[in-house]
């Protein structure tokens, strides 16, 4: 049994409950939220109680990151549950959806117990495991949606892969709706993107790298949205990268189609020019596109076409990146810089603070159907305390993730997580 905690003098932002006010939060002995808001202030609390004065820092719900690669099982040398947990907590992330592209892949119920046990024993964050849509993520045979979901699988996705076969995809959407399973599609037509390294454009022409046309993304999104008219299901597009896709999603949502979409913080904050002289840490999937695309993605977040921002945290060891661009592994580590990098979009006036926080708390919570990402009284106290103005510089060797492949080395950011609580327990505190 813990001691009751009184956090006072904070700015509390909770998008789900539309709270943005000065006040405090009381965490009970069991780690649940007992009270929250402006009524929690010094005068109303027992005088003998020990209070933590947050001096106008911000309290937000612990973040939910919907796209995270763990490395366990099979790639422990890139990231394990312990290192992931440390990295996540220092970035204010208390819940993650773990991608199933492990070795072996997460495609059967026996793996789910392993993940839950490892996650519980080695990490302090909440792991919501995703399983694949197809056996071995090879796009041929669908997985056991009902059985997997009943074991605790939160979502289904082939992760870095896309179900190419339209017949299979339509059947997956038809079948998975029975168990109300959440489908998350990585939208990329493999044939159109085959051999591609970066966005198809002037930069790919100059660098002599084969391009990935934005059509490769668009064609899968349009296909799946057509299926969605026939087969109503819980459908989420993992992450989009281009202006055209934003427009398609906006139009479909305006027409009343029910689905959701995400974007990686990398595509919101960087563009293809940042690849410079073959920086392999910026080799990403979907690729970084033009500044025009980036601006459209920001608009998409602002008008609700895009629901969530993810880190797309994909740790890769040095050996996988110290190669020529076309041989190097795809992906960037980013879970601990997700929020600070997103705050850059607040500081430069691109996106409102409440919107940014909603895309990482209340929105993913709603999509996943979990009791996380809000400050509801009675919920487990997963919270994060934030200094929104603190300047700092990203340094590879200070990252807690086992792999150091950050795409924003030496970037000057503003805003840092000071403390993170999971289930009422202080699990991270910045020195």
């Amino acid at each position: 049994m813990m001691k009751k905690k009184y956090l006072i003098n904070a700015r509390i932002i909770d998008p789900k409950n539309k709270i943005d006010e000065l006040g405090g939060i009381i965490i009970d002995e069991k780690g649940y939220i007992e009270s929250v808001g402006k009524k929690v202030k010094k005068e109303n609390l027992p005088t003998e109680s020990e209070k933590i004065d947050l001096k106008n820092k911000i309290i937000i719900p612990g973040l939910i990151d919907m796209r995270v690669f763990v490395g366990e099982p099979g790639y422990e040398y890139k990231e394990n549950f312990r290192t992931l947990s440390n990295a996540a907590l220092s970035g204010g992330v208390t819940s993650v959806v773990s991608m199933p592209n492990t070795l072996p892949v997460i495609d059967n119920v026996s793996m789910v117990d392993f993940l839950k046990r490892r996650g519980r024993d080695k990490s302090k964050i909440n792991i919501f495991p995703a399983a694949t849509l197809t056996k071995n993520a090879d796009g041929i045979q669908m997985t056991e949606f009902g059985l997997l979901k009943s074991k605790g699988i939160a979502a289904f996705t082939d992760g870095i892969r896309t179900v190419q076969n339209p017949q299979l995809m339509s059947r997956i959407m038809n079948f998975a709706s029975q168990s109300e399973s959440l489908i998350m599609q990585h939208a990329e037509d493999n044939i159109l993107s085959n051999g591609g390294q970066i966005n198809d454009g002037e930069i790919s022409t100059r660098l002599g790298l084969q391009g990935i046309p934005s059509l490769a993304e668009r064609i899968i999104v349009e296909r799946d949205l057509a299926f969605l008219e026939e087969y109503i299901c819980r459908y989420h597009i993992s992450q989009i990268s281009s202006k055209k896709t934003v427009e398609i999603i906006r139009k479909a949502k305006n027409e009343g189609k029910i689905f959701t979409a995400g974007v990686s913080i990398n595509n919101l904050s960087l563009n293809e020019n940042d690849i410079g002289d073959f920086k392999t840490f910026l080799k990403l999937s979907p690729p970084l596109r033009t500044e025009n695309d980036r601006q459209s993605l920001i608009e998409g977040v602002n008008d609700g076409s895009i629901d969530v921002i993810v880190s797309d945290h994909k740790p890769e060891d040095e050996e996988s990146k110290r190669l020529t661009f076309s041989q190097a592994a795809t992906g960037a580590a980013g879970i601990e810089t997700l929020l600070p990098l997103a705050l850059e979009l607040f500081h430069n006036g691109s996106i409102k603070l409440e919107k940014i926080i909603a895309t990482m708390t209340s929105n993913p919570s709603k999509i996943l159907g979990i009791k996380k990402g809000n400050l509801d009284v009675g919920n487990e106290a997963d919270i994060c305390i934030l200094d929104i103005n603190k300047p700092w510089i990203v340094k590879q060797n200070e990252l807690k993730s086992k792999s150091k492949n950050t795409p924003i080395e030496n970037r000057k950011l503003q805003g840092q997580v000071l403390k993170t609580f999971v289930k009422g327990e202080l699990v991270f505190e910045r020195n």
Partner: protein
Amino acid sequence: MAIIKKLKAVKINQNHLLGIQDLSISDVNKILDESKKFIKLNKSSSKKINLLRGKTQINLFFEPSTRTQSSFELAGKRLGADVMSMNIVNSAIKKGETLIDTAMTLNAMHPDIIVIRHQDSGAPNLLSQKVNCAVINAGDGRREHPTQALLDALTIINRRGKVEGLKIAICGDILHSRVARSNIYLMNMLGAEVNVVAPKTLLPHSIERLGVNVYHNMKKGLDNCDIVMMLRLQNERMQGSFLPSAREYYEYFGLTPDKLASAKKEALIMHPGPMNRGVEIDTTLADDINRSVIREQVELGVAVRMACLKLFCKNI
């Protein structure tokens, strides 16, 4: 001989020759001026001098190459360097060694120059970050082949006096061509007007942003041109179908006397080789001694590479 000994030390602003994109116009002029001096040497009976005596040059070829590799080898030997050519196509890389590991191994042998050809764009850039010697790009992926463009410029200057003001058409598989990219940068830099002529499927995205006029009709693209540069159809790099057939390609994009007629009467024909006769170029045109300077390109290639070896070797 005597002329070369009197040469003053010429400085290049770069440590490595990774691409034309990195060079300034004064760098290019230094290389071309230097090359001209070697043309004469290469025609003399005693071709060997000792400018690079005691220096070690490693040719690191990850892709098969005949003319570029032998050209670099000969260039190094004529300057007196110790030249070692490594064909990595069947070597350590196949055993799982990475480019960086290979580079570190070679670097431990203290070479003064590494000449690299690699199938991946950017490989010479990566190599240059890891070794202590000068790196010369002998072709990387689709990105650059700087010495080819320099020898093309030298050939044009040798025949026409200068590049400035000329109209140059680069025709064929632009998409997969590093020669095209390097030539586009260089000919633009030297003041030529550059046309590219290709079927739409063999043009890279936004090629017009590199400062060229784009044509899909060969006669229009060759109209009033001074130089016609043909490119090899790179079948080995083509995954999937870009064209219906070699026959259809030849019909619309092969260089024939009929299409050449729209260029200037005295227009020169160039080709980086190896040629696919009857695919991108009519065989009699390729051998026409009045029009084709294809063999001269090979000859001047050695001079250009000697100049590059000299200038970049001294620069470290």
